[in-house]
């Protein structure tokens, strides 16, 4: 059962310029993204800076309004709901940030911060709230007596535990986790990843896990969507993605990532040249053609659709369409 369905989601940010601050263009941060996440599943959303992965997260959280497309949460279309009407749905979708500290009021005790959503959503107050918060603290590995401490008294990993406890407080179905372990040292990162997996298995949570780190993705995801310049270029199971990537960008990402193995590392890598083009001026046709080692003339013109080319394996590449020339990448 899908707890969230996203269909052709688009978010364009206007660029204003000139003396009258007229609209002179737009940044196509998200340019037609579709995916679903089932109960108990982690969908990893991976890509480099500016690919639009965080904007996807913010849009489905309704922190920003989509330009077009559809967001269906637990069977209900929430795309067009105004802030007041979307409020009850916020209980079902919560978020964890990279830096939880920036979202915590430094003058409130940790227990108050974690218990805030319980009051806001009218779930529990007073003593009942305190008991629930104490249980949440315990569950995420914090001592209940830490409820009286302030955010600055916690370490980075402990603050992330606070952020997780707060997100869990309203028993959501979906959690959008945007780079939740990127700021943590590896020994602490392992603790937080283990906690996230345990909580998912316990409560059937669905995660949209946004990260640039492929090793973390491989560890926590069930399926992975690879984004490049506002579009999903490949979406498949973790196993298929690592065993046989079909999009040249995915291949480049996997090849570029470093691994803690000196023998694997000293191989000749396929390094893509150049920088990511600006999302305000994405190249025509396939957005990746300017850096793609296999690009042919058609790639500069035709916009490749995301197609299912094998069961559960979606890719947006002209060479993967029926009749396309799979070229040197095929296995």
């Amino acid at each position, binding site marked *: 059962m899908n707890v969230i369905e996203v269909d052709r989601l688009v978010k364009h940010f206007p660029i204003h310029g000139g003396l009258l601050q007229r609209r002179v263009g737009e940044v196509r941060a998200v340019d037609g993204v579709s995916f679903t996440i089932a109960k108990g599943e982690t969908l990893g959303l991976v890509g*480099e800076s500016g690919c639009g992965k965080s904007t996807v997260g913010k849009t489905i959280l309704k922190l920003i309004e989509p330009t077009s497309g559809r967001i269906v949460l637990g069977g209900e279309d929430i795309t067009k709901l105004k802030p007041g009407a979307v409020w009850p749905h916020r209980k079902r979708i919560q978020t964890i940030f990279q830096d939880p500290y920036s979202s915590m009021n430094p003058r409130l005790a940790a227990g108050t911060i974690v218990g805030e959503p319980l009051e806001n959503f009218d779930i529990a107050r007073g003593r009942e709230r305190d008991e629930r918060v104490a249980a949440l603290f315990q569950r995420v590995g914090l001592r209940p007596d830490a409820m009286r401490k302030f955010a600055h008294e916690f370490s980075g990993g402990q603050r992330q535990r606070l952020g997780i406890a707060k997100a869990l407080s309203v028993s959501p179905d979906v959690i959008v986790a945007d780079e939740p372990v990127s700021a943590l040292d*590896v020994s602490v990162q392992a603790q937080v990843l283990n906690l996230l997996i345990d909580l998912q298995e316990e409560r059937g949570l669905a995660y949209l896990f946004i990260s640039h780190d492929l*090793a973390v993705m*491989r560890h926590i995801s069930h399926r992975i969507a690879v984004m490049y310049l506002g579009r999903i270029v490949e979406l498949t199971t973790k196993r298929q993605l690592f065993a046989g990537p079909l999009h040249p960008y995915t291949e480049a*990402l996997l090849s*570029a990532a470093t*691994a803690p193995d000196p023998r694997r590392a000293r191989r000749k890598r396929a390094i893509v040249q150049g920088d990511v083009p600006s999302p305000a001026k994405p190249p025509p046709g396939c957005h990746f053609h300017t850096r793609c080692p296999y690009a042919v003339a058609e790639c500069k013109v035709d916009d490749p659709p995301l197609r299912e080319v094998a069961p559960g394996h979606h890719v947006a590449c002209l060479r993967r369409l029926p009749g396309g020339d799979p070229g040197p990448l095929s296995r």
Partner: protein
Amino acid sequence: MDAILQVRDLRTQFDTLEGVVRAVDGVSFDLARGETLGIVGESGCGKSVTAMSILRLIPPETGRIASGSIRFEGEELTTLSEEQMKRLRGHRISMIFQEPMTSLNPVLTVGTQIAENVVRHMGVSKKVARERACEMLDLVRIADPRRRLDEYPHQLSGGMRQRVMIAMALSCDPQVLIADEPTTALDVTIQAQILDLMLDLKEKTGTAIVLITHDLGVIAETAQRVVVMYAGRQVEEAPVEALFDNPLHPYTRGLMRAIPRLDVDAEEGGRRPRLQEIPGLVPRLTQPIIGCAFAARCELATDRCRTTAPPIVDAGGGHIVACWETGL
């Protein structure tokens, strides 16, 4: 070994409101000519302070090199005057940092900044220095270098800026390049380009590199020898293959088991495995650490570990470890 840089029992301390922080607490290593030495560790382990100490960039108002020796081509750096250090920095010892934008001057063109360094250290004319700058941009594979000379840092992408920093750092043919997290702020495809470039340039120029990073993947990819630091101390040092094949210190072992693997399908029967956690937290550096700094988090720790600092044990083949319990 023909060491170009010798660090012996380096101790660097900072004064804070909570007391003296022993950021680096007894680090020793040699850097051979043309070698890439990696220094790896988590936040606060003292790896960056080690680099700053070598460059003598510890702010004198708050910190100092308390003891130890740093010899560069036989010359003791800890006693040099600031004037003498200025002649060395950016010339014979160079550096690049994580965020190039903070080290580039936003109001000067890239060409002017590289040429400035060349004029200062090589004593050549501005015209010659500009030619040198152009040559360097070409060397770091910036397309159309002559046009780029007249651009400002904000006009360049993050990867391009790091290339400019590398060009500047190498413009006066340094013997040693200190790179502190040079690719941490970059995207993975750009990181691959920069690492590839650094290795290629090392081959071409013979510059020895001290590469400081928290990323074991970057270490595996680039370093020939590795120093592992924990809480200001050096806990292990080994050739890169030996370190990854046979890590000896419990902390190094813990780190390797804690990282999710990109290159291994770790699933067992479709279930995601648990990562090995290192319990507890890094000790506070404001109190002197009695015994082994890792003892409080180590599953092998005995009373001896908690009371007496472990000696450096030689495991052979250039592999040394500071641990009582390795069985050596």
